[in-house]
C-alpha cells in the first residue's frame, strides 16, 4: 500500500474511491499523508454522510465554498472512535489525532479533490496556522511588483537562506548511482623474464586435455522453473482443404466439317399432300385473311412518311433557272509544233482537278504516210492537266505512237493503259510521280528532288516544267492487233478470264486484265501479270486469247460487262456472249454465233455505254441518231431518235441524273437530252467550240460540283461546270425514268403483238379473198350450164321456125308443137 500511494496522489482525477474505501479498512499501518506532494501534514480522508452528520461537516451545509473547513475538537474524535470503532472514518488517522498537540483539528472539505479525497485533515499546528492564515507574501509580492514597475529597480543582492528540505534529497538519493558491491582487488605477479618472450600459439583440442576449460553447464534450476498454468491460445475454424489436380487429355486438333441439306418431299408425296383434305381446309380458312392483308397493301402503303415525301429538293444551290453549262476552264497544249486533236479524255479517278488527255495528229491516213518520217521525231503524248495550271501540263506520258484511247486502272490509279494507232498497247506507271501530282493544288512551288528510277527519264528539274514519262510496258507488234485499237477497257476487279474464256473470280482484288477491240475485227483479252516461268521482262503482257468475230466489218467501240456488245462500223449492234465453245467437229475454239443483229444507226457507231443507274439500259450513239436499248429486249431499241441535222460524234450518260445524257455534234454543239422532258429532241443545245467534238466525259467531284470535259478536234479541252439543275436528280427521277423504260418495253411488246395481229389479219384477209374467189367460180359453173340449156332451147326453137318457114314441116305438126 505504501508504494501505491504516491501514484494515487498524483492522479488528480475523481480518484478511485472504491479502492480507497477498501484499502484503509482493517489496516493498522501508517496513515496516508501527502508527504509526496510536499505537504506531510495533510491527510486526505473520505467521510461518509453519516460521519459528516456526526461531525457536522455536511457538504454544502456546514462546509461551503466560503468556509470549507471546520475545526473539530479532539474529544469529538475520541467519542467517535468509542462509538464506531474501526469503522469510523477517522480511524486511520487516530494516531495522529492522539498525538496532536493542539485541541482542535482542522478538517477541510476538498471540493476539487486536490488530494484525492473529499476531505482532508491537517495534522500539525503549523499546517493549521498556514491554512487559516495563508502567508501574504505572494500577495505582497504581486503588489510589490506592480508598485515597483514605476520606480527604479533597486538591486538587492541575494541573501542566502537556510535550506529547507522539500523532499528533493530523497529523490537525489534514489537516483544517484552507488556501488552496491565491494570491488575485489587482485594482484598477479610473474617472473620478469617471462614477459616479452616469444610465444608460440598452437591449437589444442579442448576436449582431450583435462581441465583445459571450465564450463558452467546450464542446468535446470528448480527455483526458477515456472509452470505455465494458463496459456492464451487462439483458434480458428477452417474448412478442410484438399489439393487436387487434373489434366485433360490433349488431343491433336482435327478439321471437321458438317454439311446439311434441307429436307424435302418427293414429288409424289407432295402431290399426295396437295390433294389432302386438311390442306384444302387450311387454305380455305387462311386465304381470307391473307387476301385482306394483300389488299391492304395494294390500297395504300401505310409506312410511307408523307411529310418527307412531300418535300421536293433541299435548298437550291445556285440559280434554279440556270441550265446552261458554264465554262470553267480550257486547256490547250501550246508547245506542240503540229496541229493536234484530242482523241480521248479521262479524269483521274482519285485526285481532284486532274484530267488526262491523249492527243494525236490531225492527219488522214495518206498524210500520215506522207509525213511519217517527220512524225517519228515528235513524241506522242498523253498530257495531264490540272485546274491550277492551265498553261503547263503537269505530266506528259510518252508513247511510241499516237494513242487513240486510254484508261486509268480502276484498282490502282497510277497505272494507265492506252491503245495506239498501230495496234500496240502501251502501259505507264506513274507511281513515282503520284505524290507530285497529288500536291499540285498547293501551287507546285515545292522543289522536290524526285527519286530517279531506272525506268523513267526525267527532264532537268524546274517545277514549272512538265515531266516526260516513258511507258513501262508495250505489247508486241506481232501478237497484238493489226489495226488501230479503238477501245480499251480494264476488266473489273472481280472478274478474271482464262484461256478458255470462262470467267473466274479474281482473288487479287486488283484489275489485272484488259480487253481491247480494234478495227481488225478482233477483240483481245490481255493479262498484265508476269508469266509463271521467269522471263527477262517481268512486265511483258501476255496475250490470253483472241476472239475472232466472224464478219468482215471492223469494230469500233465496245463497252464491257459480263456480256458485251461490239459495234460495227456499218452501224450494226451485235449482242453476243463471250463464252468460247468447242466446235465439236474441228476441235477449234470458236465463239458463239451472234445472237442478234440490228441496223439502227446509219453511220459509224462510236459509243456504246451502259447507264450508270440501270444495269440493262444501254445507250448507243452513231451516225445521225441515238438509240437506247434494254438488254434481253430483242425486238428493237427502246428509243430511237429521229435524224439530227448534224452528225453525232460523241456522247455520255450523266453521272447523277438517270434520264440525262450528253451528245456532242460535229459542229461543236452539245445536245443535252432529258428523257423526262422531251424524248423527241434534245432539251438543251449549247455551243462549245467551233469544231467537231471528239470526246465528252463528265465527272463528279462532290454533290455540289460536277464538271464535264469536252474535247474538240482542234486539240482544246474545255471544262465546263454542270449547273445545279442538270446535276441534281429530282426525288423520284429514277423511278420515273424506270417507268418510262418499262412503258417503252411494253410499247415494243405491243408493237410486236400488233405486228403479229396484223399478220394474222392479213392472213385472214387473204383467206377470205381466196374463199370468195372459190365461190364465184362455182357459181359461174352452174350459170354456164343454165345458159347452155337456154341456148340449146332457143336453138331448137330457131330450128323449128326455120323448118316451118321452109315448109318442110306441116302446120298440123306445127300445131302439135304449139299445143305442146
Amino acid at each position, binding site marked *: 500500500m505504501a508504494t501505491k500511494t504516491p501514484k494515487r496522489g498524483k492522479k488528480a482525477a475523481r480518484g478511485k474511491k472504491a479502492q480507497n474505501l477498501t484499502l484503509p479498512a482493517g489496516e493498522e499501518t501508517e496513515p496516508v499523508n501527502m508527504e509526496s506532494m510536499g505537504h506531510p501534514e495533510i491527510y486526505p480522508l473520505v467521510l461518509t454522510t453519516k460521519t459528516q452528520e456526526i461531525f457536522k461537516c455536511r457538504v454544502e451545509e456546514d462546509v461551503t465554498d466560503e468556509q470549507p473547513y471546520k475545526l473539530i475538537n479532539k474529544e469529538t474524535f475520541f467519542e467517535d472512535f468509542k462509538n464506531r470503532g474501526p469503522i469510523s472514518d477517522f480511524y486511520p488517522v487516530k494516531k495522529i489525532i492522539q498525538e496532536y498537540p493542539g485541541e482542535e483539528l482542522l478538517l477541510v472539505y476538498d471540493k476539487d479533490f486536490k488530494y484525492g479525497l473529499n476531505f482532508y485533515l491537517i495534522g500539525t499546528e503549523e499546517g493549521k496556522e498556514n491554512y487559516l492564515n495563508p502567508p501574504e507574501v505572494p500577495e505582497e509580492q504581486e503588489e510589490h511588483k506592480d508598485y515597483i514597475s514605476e520606480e527604479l529597480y533597486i538591486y538587492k543582492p541575494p541573501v542566502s537562506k537556510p535550506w529547507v528540505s522539500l523532499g528533493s534529497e530523497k529523490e537525489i538519493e534514489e537516483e544517484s548511482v552507488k556501488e552496491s558491491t565491494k570491488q575485489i582487488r587482485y594482484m598477479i605477479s610473474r617472473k620478469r623474464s617471462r614477459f616479452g618472450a616469444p610465444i608460440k600459439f598452437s591449437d589444442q583440442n579442448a576436449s582431450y586435455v583435462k581441465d583445459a576449460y571450465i564450463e558452467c553447464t546450464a542446468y535446470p534450476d528448480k527455483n526458477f522453473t515456472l509452470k505455465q498454468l494458463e496459456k492464451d491460445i487462439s483458434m480458428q475454424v477452417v474448412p478442410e482443404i484438399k489439393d487436387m489436380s487434373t489434366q485433360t487429355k490433349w488431343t491433336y486438333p482435327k478439321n471437321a466439317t458438317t454439311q446439311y441439306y434441307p429436307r*424435302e418431299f418427293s414429288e409424289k408425296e407432295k402431290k399426295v399432300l396437295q390433294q389432302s*383434305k386438311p390442306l384444302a381446309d387450311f387454305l*380455305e380458312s387462311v386465304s381470307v385473311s*391473307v387476301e385482306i392483308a394483300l389488299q391492304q397493301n395494294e390500297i395504300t402503303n401505310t409506312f410511307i412518311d408523307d411529310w418527307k415525301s412531300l418535300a421536293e429538293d433541299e435548298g437550291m444551290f445556285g440559280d434554279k433557272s440556270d441550265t446552261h453549262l458554264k465554262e470553267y476552264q480550257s486547256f490547250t497544249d501550246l508547245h506542240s509544233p503540229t496541229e493536234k486533236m484530242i482523241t480521248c479524255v479521262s479524269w483521274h479517278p482519285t485526285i481532284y482537278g486532274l484530267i488526262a488527255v491523249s492527243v494525236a495528229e490531225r492527219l488522214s491516213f495518206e498524210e500520215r504516210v506522207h509525213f511519217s518520217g517527220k512524225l517519228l521525231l515528235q513524241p506522242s503524248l498523253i498530257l495531264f492537266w490540272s485546274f491550277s495550271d492551265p498553261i503547263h501540263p503537269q505530266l506528259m506520258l510518252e508513247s511510241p505512237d499516237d494513242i487513240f484511247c486510254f484508261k486509268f486502272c480502276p484498282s490502282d490509279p497510277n497505272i494507265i493503259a492506252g491503245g495506239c494507232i498501230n495496234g500496240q498497247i502501251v502501259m505507264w506507271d506513274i507511281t513515282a510521280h503520284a505524290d507530285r501530282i497529288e500536291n499540285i493544288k498547293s501551287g507546285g512551288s515545292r522543289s522536290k528532288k524526285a527519286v530517279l528510277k531506272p525506268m523513267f527519264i526525267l527532264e532537268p528539274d524546274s517545277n514549272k516544267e512538265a515531266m516526260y514519262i516513258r511507258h513501262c510496258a508495250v505489247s508486241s507488234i506481232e501478237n497484238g492487233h493489226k489495226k488501230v485499237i479503238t477501245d480499251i477497257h480494264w476488266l473489273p476487279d472481280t472478274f478474271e478470264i482464262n484461256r478458255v474464256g470462262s470467267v473466274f473470280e479474281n482473288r487479287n482484288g486488283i484489275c489485272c486484265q484488259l480487253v481491247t477491240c480494234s478495227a481488225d475485227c478482233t477483240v483481245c483479252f490481255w493479262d498484265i501479270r508476269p508469266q509463271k516461268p521467269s522471263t527477262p521482262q517481268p512486265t511483258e503482257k501476255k496475250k490470253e486469247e483472241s476472239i475472232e468475230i466472224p464478219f468482215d466489218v471492223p469494230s469500233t467501240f465496245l463497252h464491257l460487262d459480263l456480256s458485251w456488245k461490239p459495234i460495227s462500223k456499218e452501224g450494226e449492234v451485235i449482242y453476243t456472249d463471250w463464252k468460247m465453245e468447242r466446235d465439236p467437229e474441228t476441235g477449234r475454239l470458236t465463239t458463239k454465233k451472234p445472237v442478234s443483229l440490228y441496223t439502227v444507226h446509219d453511220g459509224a457507231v462510236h459509243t456504246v455505254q451502259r447507264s450508270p443507274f440501270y444495269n440493262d439500259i444501254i445507250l448507243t450513239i452513231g451516225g445521225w441518231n441515238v438509240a437506247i436499248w434494254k438488254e434481253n429486249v430483242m425486238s428493237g431499241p427502246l428509243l430511237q431518235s429521229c435524224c439530227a441535222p448534224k452528225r453525232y460524234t460523241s456522247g455520255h450518260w450523266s453521272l447523277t441524273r438517270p434520264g440525262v445524257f450528253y451528245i456532242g455534234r460535229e459542229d461543236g454543239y452539245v445536245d443535252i437530252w432529258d428523257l423526262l422532258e422531251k424524248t423527241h429532241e434534245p432539251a438543251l443545245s449549247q455551243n462549245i467550240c467551233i469544231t467537231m467534238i471528239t470526246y465528252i466525259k463528265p465527272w463528279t467531284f462532290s454533290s455540289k460540283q460536277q464538271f464535264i470535259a469536252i474535247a474538240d478536234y482542234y486539240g482544246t479541252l474545255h471544262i465546263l461546270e454542270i449547273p445545279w439543275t442538270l446535276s441534281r436528280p429530282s426525288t423520284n427521277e429514277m423511278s420515273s425514268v424506270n417507268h418510262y423504260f418499262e412503258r417503252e418495253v411494253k410499247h415494243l411488246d405491243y408493237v410486236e403483238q400488233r405486228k403479229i395481229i396484223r399478220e394474222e389479219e392479213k392472213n385472214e384477209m387473204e383467206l377470205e379473198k381466196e374463199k370468195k374467189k372459190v365461190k364465184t367460180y362455182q357459181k359461174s359453173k352452174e350459170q354456164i350450164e343454165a345458159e347452155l340449156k337456154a341456148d340449146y332451147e332457143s336453138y331448137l326453137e330457131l330450128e323449128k321456125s326455120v323448118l316451118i318457114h321452109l315448109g318442110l314441116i306441116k302446120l298440123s305438126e306445127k300445131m302439135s308443137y304449139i299445143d305442146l
Partner: protein
Amino acid sequence: MVNVGSPPAPRRSEGADRLGPSLPGSRAVPGRGEEVEETLKRIQSHKGVIGNMVVNAEGIPIRTTLDNSTTVQYAGLLHQLTMKARSTVRDIDPQNDLTFLRIRSKKHEIMVAPDKEYLLIVIQNPCE
C-alpha cells in the same frame, strides 16, 4: 364434288372439327386439288405478289411458286420465326394464339398465315 362445309371465317386450333369428319390424307379427291390450285392462283394474281408457298408443320415445303433454293431458305427461316412468334404470344397469355405474321422490309412484305399443320407464306412487293 365434296364441299367443305365450314364458313370462310378463319378458325384456329379446332383440329377436332377437321379431323373428325375428314378423311385420311391419302385418299385423293380430285376436287380438292383443284380448289387448292385455285386458291393459290388467286393469291398469286394479286398485285405485287412475288411468290407464295405452302409449308408443312416441320418446315418442309409442299408447294411453291419460287425456285427450290429460295423456297427452302424461306421455309426454314420463316418456320422457325413463326414458332418463336407463336411461343411468344402464348407465353404472355396461354389462351392466346398467333393468327397472322407480317414482316415488312424495305423491299417487300412477307406474310405468314400459320396453322396447326401448315404455313402459308406469301411475299408481296407493296410499293407501287
